[in-house]
């Protein structure tokens, strides 16, 4: 299945693009999507461990099952203000 990932903040520096599409074997969870992204390099994998993930305007856990068409938002450590 295909999953779209929107990369916020510094995560974009590792993916090189705001949106990334992942192809995962079913069944898959948020953790699987993050693991696939982490294959891009150790430094990014380390940042991914500090990321939260949202679907729509809800934070979701890494155990959440994915469905084709899901759009994940990758939220690295925040620094507002």
């Amino acid at each position: 299945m295909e999953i779209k990932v929107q990369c916020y903040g510094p995560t974009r520096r590792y993916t090189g693009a705001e949106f990334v599409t992942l192809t995962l074997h079913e069944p898959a969870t948020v953790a699987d999507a993050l693991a696939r992204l982490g294959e891009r390099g150790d430094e990014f994998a380390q940042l991914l461990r500090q990321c939260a993930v949202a679907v729509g305007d809800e934070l979701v856990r890494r155990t959440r099952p994915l469905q084709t068409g899901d759009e994940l938002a990758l939220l690295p450590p925040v620094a507002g203000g």
Partner: protein
Amino acid sequence: MSPADFPRIQSAPLSLDALIADGRDDCGALTIFAGTVRNHHDQRPVEYLVYTAHAPLADKMIREIEREVAARHRATVCRVVHRIGRLGIGESAILAVVRAPHRAEAFAALRAVVDAVKHRVPIWKEEFYSDGSSAFVTGCCIAEADDAGAASAPRHAHEHDHDHDHDHAH
């Protein structure tokens, strides 16, 4: 539009006047915080900042934090707006307003709401320096502590964070 209905994430310059337009006869204390862009960070001259946000989630979380802090500190009004986009030196990135019957609650709620927004809301700050380089300011992990696979200790990515502004309550 009542101040209560404002979008909490705004790309236009923030207006303090708009935020305090609705007075409250039952409140003796009004506290305000403005976080403005400094011309330096860790001795490096800063030219400008770019803030980005996950706007729908950030808006929702700021409203939740406002309600939570107002209830905990018995404040009557608790309101925060955060700007995104490019900001020059001296511009306001965040404005927070609290009204409470008495000043002790207004001070406590102001500090609490600003800290919570800084630590929990999906907003990112990228600094652009005079030499043409830029860097994201290291921040706080907002994954739930028990979210398997997420880094839970240390909860915050502080290794390169020398921003004294970034003081946690814990």
